């Protein structure tokens, strides 16, 4: 839904400097577990990937899904079940989660892309709530209890994921892989057409593009990547519960993406880090953290509508223009 959102036209040209920044960021991520609690970092990585997957749809196709929890939480259940009940190797279990989320994305997307804007959002919300209800009822999810005690196992039968540092680096690798895929999709010929559809759908149709197919393709990709995040989360935290499939989770990922900056590659990462870090650090406060995040959210939307990263990029672009 493109209503009221500001898209960033073109990333400023800072190819070499963005490579340097990327290298610094990866170095920081590699060193991070020696300075921060690895579980917190892994939580951030999972949600950051989830937000990036969500952003692929809102930021680059202009579709606001209010049902992404179904893919995130659904994949968590599939992965957890495969790892715990069937004793699958963790990577295979995660891939099953990805495949499951992709199939769900195909079904939900097929119905939802027929409508636009708020109607699209409502269909995705309704379908994901149906899925949440199914998760509450069917036996394999264990209802209110969820699937607990999922074994982390040995990656490819070799790497012991019960080792926190090993688990962290595997999670980091999965995150970087997912992030790379999103970056590739966004900067591909296909991504170009997605942006064109976002910018002017009628025009894209008049140029002969079957926009429904492009939207569905993007929807399935976004769902599969959300599934990658959810499946990984199930292995990292060793459980899958109803929290992950509920509509609050869909809301949370919207919040993270908006906060960081819709339509920017690293915006969702920044947004997710901020929200997760705040939740963790203020959990011990007497002041309810939800209210705090709500206040921050309102301030952000009022002061910088493009999100944190979006505003920074805009500022740099203006500087560059001024200099030129």
């Amino acid at each position, binding site marked *: 839904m493109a209503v009221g959102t500001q898209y960033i036209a073109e990333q400023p040209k800072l190819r070499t400097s963005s490579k340097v920044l990327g290298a610094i960021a990866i170095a920081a991520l590699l060193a991070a577990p020696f300075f921060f609690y690895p579980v917190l970092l892994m939580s951030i990585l999972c949600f950051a990937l989830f937000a990036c997957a969500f952003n692929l749809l809102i930021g680059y196709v202009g579709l606001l899904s209010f049902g992404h929890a179904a893919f995130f939480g659904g994949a968590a259940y599939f992965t957890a079940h495969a790892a715990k009940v069937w004793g699958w190797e963790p990577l295979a279990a995660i891939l099953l989660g990805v495949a499951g989320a992709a199939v769900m994305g195909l079904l939900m997307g097929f119905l939802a892309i027929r409508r636009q804007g708020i109607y699209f959002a409502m269909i995705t919300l309704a379908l994901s709530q149906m899925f949440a209800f199914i998760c509450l009822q069917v036996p394999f999810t264990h209802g209110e209890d969820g699937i607990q005690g999922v074994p982390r196992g040995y990656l490819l039968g070799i790497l012991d994921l019960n080792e926190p540092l090993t688990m962290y680096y595997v999670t980091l690798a999965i995150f970087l892989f997912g992030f790379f895929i999103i970056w590739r999709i966004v900067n591909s010929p296909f991504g170009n057409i997605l942006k064109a559809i976002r910018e002017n759908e009628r*025009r894209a149709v008049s140029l*002969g593009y079957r926009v429904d197919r492009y939207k569905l393709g993007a929807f399935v990709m976004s769902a599969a990547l959300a599934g990658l995040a959810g499946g990984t989360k199930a292995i990292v935290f060793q459980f899958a519960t109803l929290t992950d499939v509920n509509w609050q989770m869909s809301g949370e990922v919207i919040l993270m993406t908006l906060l960081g900056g819709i339509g920017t590659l690293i915006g969702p990462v920044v947004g997710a880090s901020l929200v997760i870090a705040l939740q963790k650090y203020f959990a011990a406060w007497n002041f309810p953290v939800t209210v705090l995040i709500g206040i921050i959210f309102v301030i952000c939307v009022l002061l910088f509508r493009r999100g944190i990263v979006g505003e920074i990029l805009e500022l740099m672009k203006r500087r560059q223009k001024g200099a030129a």
Partner: protein
Amino acid sequence: MEFRGFLAVKDVTLSVNEGTIHALIGPNGAGKTTVFNLLTKFLTPTRGQITFKGEDITRLKAAEVARLGLVRSFQISAVFPHLTVLDNVRVALQRPSGLATQFWRSSNALSTLDERAMELIDAVNLSSYRDLTASELSYGRKRALEIATTLALDPAMLLLDEPMAGMGHEDIGRISDLIRRIAKNRTVLMVEHNLNVVADLCDRVTVLARGEILSDGSYDTVSQDPRVREAYMGTEHE
């Protein structure tokens, strides 16, 4: 075509001959844009039939019609505002070149389209703006960009909805020349309010008023028609 009981266009039989420039004129609200929307399947007719090159396209979807070579422009300039001029044209070139669905390749692969894109951009005198985003262009240049994008599909038939609207004198001359040039091996149907342009460019004129055809023929025949003068020209043409 009915909009909830409102008959927007009724009994309009319009035939456009191959290789001609055909104008569709008429006062505001006559149904010109509705006819365009029907022909390009942005609206579905309640009754009637549309054929293109002998083929019945009445039930086809908008994208399919465009693929057959019947391509339209829009009244409100239809560009991709946050894409550069070059990218705007390349988007149109991507589909016929089979470079639209590849999500695993770098968009650098699109540079093979640059040469063709620049030819089209040159043709509408936008070369010096290639790296600006479309939103930064003036109104007239946006229209020019839209025409370049439409031409990128090399369509057999173009439907131009008020291509000169809001343009200055120089721009009108330039776009007129361009339309004449591209019409050499194509069919053009255009809605246009500027009657000098119509008189100058078009082989045939159809006048639409209140959803019905009032008159049809060469510009001279049509402009002599008393009903047309009454409904339309008497007030607007000097």
